[in-house]
Structures are given as C-alpha cells and as structure tokens.
C-alpha cells in the first residue's frame, strides 16, 4: 500500500533543523523530566514504593485481591481499546487520593505518570513503521511533522516523525501505565509480610519467600545507605566549584561511585541475618505454619464484584468492537 505523506513540518533553516534533530536524538522528549526528577529526588520515589500504614479502603483489601486486580488490569488493557486503559489509569491515579499522606503521593505519582507517558510515547513513535500506522488509523495519509536526517535510520528510526506515530505512541502508553499504577497501589498498601503469607499459601518455595522478605526490608536501607554515600561524596568536594545546573549530574556520578560501597555495607550484614534466621529454625521443615490466618473481608468481596464488572465491561467492549482497536505492535 502506498503512503501519502502530507508534509507539515515547520520551515526552518537546515542547520537549525539538524540541530533540533540531534537535540531530540540526544536528549529526547524526556529532557524536561530530568529537571522534575531533580526536584522529587530519590527519596521522593521512596514514598511511592514503600508500604506505610493507613486507613483507606485499599489497606483493608487482602493482598490476593490486590494481586488479582493487578493481573486483571493487565489482561483488561491488553484486550481492549486504548481509552479503556486510559480510564483505568485515571481510576488508579485517583485511588492514590485514598492513601495516607495522599497529597505528596499523588504529586510524586503524577510525575512518574507524566514521565512514563512522555518516555513511552516517544519510545514508540520514533520507531513505528508506517505500515503499522496505516493499519492502526486505517488511512494512507500520514502527516509528517518532522524529517529526521536520513542516517538516523541506522538507529532504527523511521525517516519521518508523523503526527499519527505520536498519537499511536500516546495510545500505547496506557497499556503500561494502568498496570504500573495498580502495582504501585498494591505495594503501597500491603505489608510485605501479608504478601509473603499469600505467596506461601500458593506454595511459593520457602527460601524464595525468605529472599523476597529480605529484599523488601532491604529496599529502604538501600536508599538510606546510598543517600548517605552520595552526600558524603558531595561533602568531600565532588562537584566543587562547578556551576549549579550541573548539580544533578554530580549527584548521579556520586550514585555510580556509591554502588559498590553501598553493596559492601549491606552484604556485610548478610552473615548476621543468616545466623539470626538459622538459629530460629529457618527452613528446618517444609511445613511452616503461620500465626495469622488468611482472611477475607467484606471489602474483598466487593472488590471481587468489581473485578467481575471489569471483565463484563471488557466483554461488552469486545462485543461492540472496542477490542484492541489498534494493532499493539511497534516498539
């Protein structure tokens, strides 16, 4: 099938055009995000990846229910049209308001969402072949908004960036964001030990559960340790006398340098963790019991009802032709 290109790219001197192309190639559309992230910082991310106890409805659901929600979401968005994914993304995003310290969490997760949308859409847009766009939008006419230098194709770029490609990338994004937010909500509202208990119930091997438990407890310690290591280097003069806009860059360098000392510090404690576990009969019998029983509450039944509703909606959407409306291809 022949493609008609409608050229709508801005009329700029060739050198400027070249410069912009290279700028986008080098810094991508995610450039501004660097600045945003510099404000949120590493600790900001800690707040949206760590359980903190709270009172909202999500804290009352059993982990299994939440796990089912996460997986159902993944299934639902991979079956249906893009805007359904967008709606689910919006639903999960608004559920962040039910968490404790909601304001800050909503703020951080919004940054994350924004950067994911920008990152994923451009990640798709630059590489999606025209044939796919033709299929997706059922048209032979593509609006070119930017022409890359021809040698960009060596990096797998399509020769032209089209409006359709951007739109397509944007639509794809919601396949990722909905499960991502659902997963974050699970992590934020579930105590690691509850999660582990449910894993044990579904016969996940005991040492694996133990390793995961250790991992969960280690995550905040990694942040704390790395944060200290980074700051100590700055204090010792890393980035001294350099202009302040380079500050994030030096924080990153310090992070790279800090990886090994951080790991040595954490791994040194491993011996004692192991002694503490083994002297308390860890892994001595495969019939490990659990003090707390796995229980379901009214909230869980309601949630399961909602999951059923979700699948009914999915079925309806499919029946009315709102299935995978675009070929999920690309990347």
């Amino acid at each position: 099938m022949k493609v008609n290109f409608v050229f709508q790219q801005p009329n700029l001197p060739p050198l400027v055009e070249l410069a912009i192309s290279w700028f986008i190639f080098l810094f991508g559309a995610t450039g501004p995000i660097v600045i945003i992230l510099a404000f949120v910082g590493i600790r900001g991310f800690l707040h949206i990846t760590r359980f903190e106890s709270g009172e909202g409805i999500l804290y009352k659901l059993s982990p299994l229910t939440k796990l089912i929600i996460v997986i159902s979401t993944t299934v639902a968005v991979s079956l249906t049209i893009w805007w359904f994914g967008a709606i689910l993304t919006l639903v999960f995003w608004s559920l962040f308001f039910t968490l404790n310290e909601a304001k800050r969490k909503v703020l951080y997760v919004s940054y994350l969402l924004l950067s994911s949308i920008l990152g994923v859409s451009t990640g798709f847009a630059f590489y999606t072949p025209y044939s796919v766009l033709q299929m997706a939008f059922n048209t032979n006419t593509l609006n070119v908004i930017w022409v890359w230098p021809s040698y960009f194709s060596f990096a797998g770029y399509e020769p032209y960036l089209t409006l359709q490609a951007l739109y397509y990338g944007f639509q794809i994004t919601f396949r990722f964001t909905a499960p991502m937010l659902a997963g974050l909500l699970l992590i934020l509202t579930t105590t690691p030990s509850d999660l582990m208990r449910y894993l044990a119930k579904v016969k996940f091997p005991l040492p694996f559960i133990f390793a995961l438990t250790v991992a969960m407890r280690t995550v905040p310690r990694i942040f704390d340790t790395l944060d200290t290591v980074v700051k100590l280097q700055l204090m010792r003069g890393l980035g001294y006398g350099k202009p302040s806009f380079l500050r994030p860059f030096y924080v990153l360098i310090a992070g790279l340098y800090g990886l090994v000392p951080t790991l040595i510090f954490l791994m040194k404690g491993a011996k004692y963790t192991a002694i503490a576990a083994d002297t308390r009969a860890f892994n001595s019998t495969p019939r490990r019991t659990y003090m707390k029983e796995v229980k379901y509450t009214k909230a869980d039944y309601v949630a399961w009802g909602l999951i059923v509703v979700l699948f009914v909606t999915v079925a309806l959407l499919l029946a009315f032709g709102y299935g995978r409306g675009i070929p999920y291809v690309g990347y």
Partner: protein
Amino acid sequence: MYAVEIKGLSFSYLGSSKPSITVDELYIEEGESVLVVGKSGSGKSTLVNCINGVIPHMISGELRGEVVVMGNKVKETPMSKLSTVVGTVLQDPESQVVNYLVEEEVAFGPENLGLPPEEVKERVSEALRIAGIEHLAKRETTNLSGGELQRTVLASVLAMRPKVLILDEPTSNIDPEGTNSVFATLRELKGKKTMIVVEHKVERVLPFVDRVILIDKGRIALDLRKEEIIEGVETLVEAGVEVPSYFVLSRKLKLPRPDFEAVKKGIKEGKIALETPKRKEIADPPIMSASIKVTAKDRELVDASIEVKRGELVALMGRNGAGKTTLLKAIAGLTGDELKVTGSIVFEGEELIRRPIWYRGKYFIYLPQSFDLILVTTKVEDEIAFSLKKRGVKGFKQVVERYLREFGLEEYRKQDPMLLSMGQRRRVAMASVLASGVKVLFMDEPTSGQDFYNRMTLGKELRELTDKGYSIVVVTHDSRFAYEFADRIVVMSEGKVVANGKPEDVFKVSHKYGVEPPSDFLLRW
C-alpha cells in the same frame, strides 16, 4: 546435667593455620549465668558460635573436640533442633530482623518449627511480655529505636523457648536507655535460663551473672566466680578489658571485693591519689558557631546552638532522638529535603547557612557511624587524595604524603581500604576527610560497638588531632570516654541544648537527661 560441656575444643577458620579458639574443658551448669569478656578478636564470638551450632553448621573450618548443649552433641544435631535448645542474640539488631511487624518477627521461629497457630500466638505473647515490649507488637520493625529493635530480637529468640541463651554483645550498638531495658530483661531471666553473655560493659552485667570468663588470644585466661573477680583485675586490664577504676583501686586498697564507697572514702582520706583528665581551656573566640532550627513538616526537631573553638574536643551527648545527629547533619548540610533548616552557621566570620553541601564541606565534615561509607576508591592514597583533587588543590601529592605519614598508613598506601582492619579503615576515613583541609570534624557515635581498647585508641587519636589544631565534635553515649577525653560536654534533650560545660560540671546534672555519669567521675565527686 550440665547445660554446656566442652572438651578438647579447637577451631580454625578456613585458610587460617592457627586455631581461633582452644578450650580444654569448660562446664556451665544449668541455670548459671556466665559473662564472657575479652578484646575484639580474642575468640569470644568463635566460642559462642561453637555452642549455638553456627560452627560447624554454618561456618566451616577445622573443628576438633566435643561441644554438648543440654545433652545434644552440637556437631551431630541439626540447627533446627539446636535452635530450640539454645537461642542467640547478636550485636546489630538491624541485620537480625527480617520481618515487617514486631509480632511477626517474634512469630518467625515458632512458625519455622511448624507449630500450630494457637501455640505460636501463645509463645509470641509470652515472649513479648518477658521482653517487656507487648506495646510494640503491632509496630513496624523499620521505625523502632535500637533498644526496641534489640528487645524484639530477644523476644523472637525467647519465643523458641530455649534453655540456653547466648547474648553476643547485645548492647554494643544501642543507646544507654536501650541498654538498660535489655539488661532489665536479662535480670528477669537470671536463674530461669542458662545465660552466656558476651559484653564489654562488665560493671553493668556483673550484678546478674555468677561467673566471669576471660578469653585472651583464643584461650580461657581466667574463669572466676563473680565474688572473686577482684583477684583477676590485673589480668583483665592487661587483656584490654574495660574494668571500672574502682575495681582496680579496690585491689590497690586490698579490699576483699570491689567496693565503690570504700574507694571513694579512700580517695577523700588521701589514701589514693587520682589523676584528673587534662582539659584544654581555650580563650580564643569560637571558630564555628551555629544556631539552628530544624523542622519536620509538623514538628520542631531541633532548636539549638553550638559553638566550637579551635583545638577543642566536644562530646555531644543525650538520649536517642534528642536531636544530636540531626543538629550535626543540619550544620554539615546533610539533612534531606523533608527537613527545613533555618538559622545561622558562622565559620570564621563567614555565614554558611545558604551554602550548599560541597561548599560547607571545605570547613567541616561529618563522619557517620558506619564510616566505611565514606570510602569510595580502591587505594588508600587515592582515598586521601579524593577531596584534594575534587577541590583542585595544587600540590596535593605532598599533602597526601603528609597524611599517610601522620596516620601511619604509608605501608598500606597501595592497598584497598575496604580490605583493611576496622581500626585502619577508620584511620583512612579520618585521614581522607581531614586531608581536604577541613577544620572541624563531626563524628557520629564512633565509640558504638567498639571494645575498650579501640575506644581508648580512638580517644588518644582524637586528642592528638585536637592538639594539632583540629576541632572535633563527637556524638557518644560513652560517659567514660567523654569524661576521659572531652574538653567540654554538650547535652541535648528534646532538640534543645540543656547542659554545656566542663565534664565535671555537666555530669552533676546530666542524669536528668538520660546521660549517666561514669563511675570514674562519681568517685571524685
């Protein structure tokens, strides 16, 4: 039946030609409490690891002889069985806790044994009660204080209902109040369990043990009833064990047992002359003075002023959570974004409150308790050169040479700092922060988890540095260390400075703020 029987034991770690511990014979009665003392590296931990089964079940090496615990031959009994007979509490609570909630941590062992849920619950509540932490049951283990965390570990071990309890330096990493609470639990358990306590705080542990064993160079050097301890005082001191001065003085006065009051009387009557620690009186104005307010989003954490003079050694003391670390971190510019710092930090006339961390780092530097975290290069000389290079100091090579020399690190210059011994690593860390030309050094709890010998060495090293003109602020819980070495003590409580002055004056009031005066001071008071 003996609780512990050891015959002909020797153990060498892999790759080591010399045994780390050799014990011809050792018997511990059921219900007996034994204090095990000795310098770091003397073989104490190796001995207790032979009793709890960590050797040979987890750490391999060459093991000879026989260890029997409550009738179980350790070598032949699996860890799961041993764990119900002998419980172990280690030094660092942070790395011993793996679960999320306190009650889950305590339930971990009984659950591992596959006990029915009812029995697990029963054991958990019993253990929480004995450890005195019923109120913490539902708390998260991630935000407990060191003392609370260590009692959680203790409870989790008690939930296994072991007959023998091993405590390997259980209070080395926690503050005095935490230490008190752990010791209170141990006092409760005396006579009910056989206890083997490895501790540096001899004076504190003595009231609830029956017997003292000294391990020196991998052998039992002394095995005394508690009442006879005075006979071993010289040996203990020689082996680098911390013994309160009045023990030594009681011996000098030929008293039958350590007697604080008698020694005090002896001093008053002039029978014994005591040297008072030397302190500097510095007339110069302070080189750094800070007046700082630190606020979290809803409450004020610190509202305090501190000043340091040139060549002064200041000890910053107070309860956990009093704001000591926060104050120093705020001055150094290390607090996170979640805290707001206002006020003024003046260094030699220059206002630094608006300056970024790397700028402040020119004048003062903060060394955390885990000082290893400062070491980022692979050679000692590179580590010392780090700051100098980053700050573009000309002729830094000579400076590096000087610091290598001054800190006795010349022979290690090409070695990897991470592979050096703890004392050497600390010297590398100090040399590399000071080499950059800073004038004020903040040290956070460098005395925690250190044995007596190491603390005294540290104290002398710090004294030498202050004599050279550096100013040092050291956060410590160790009253004896502060009394011995500090020129001045600043006590903080609830974010405020509540006492500030010479140790002799501060210790008269400090107990109100959780800082117990050392017996050395009380003797003279």
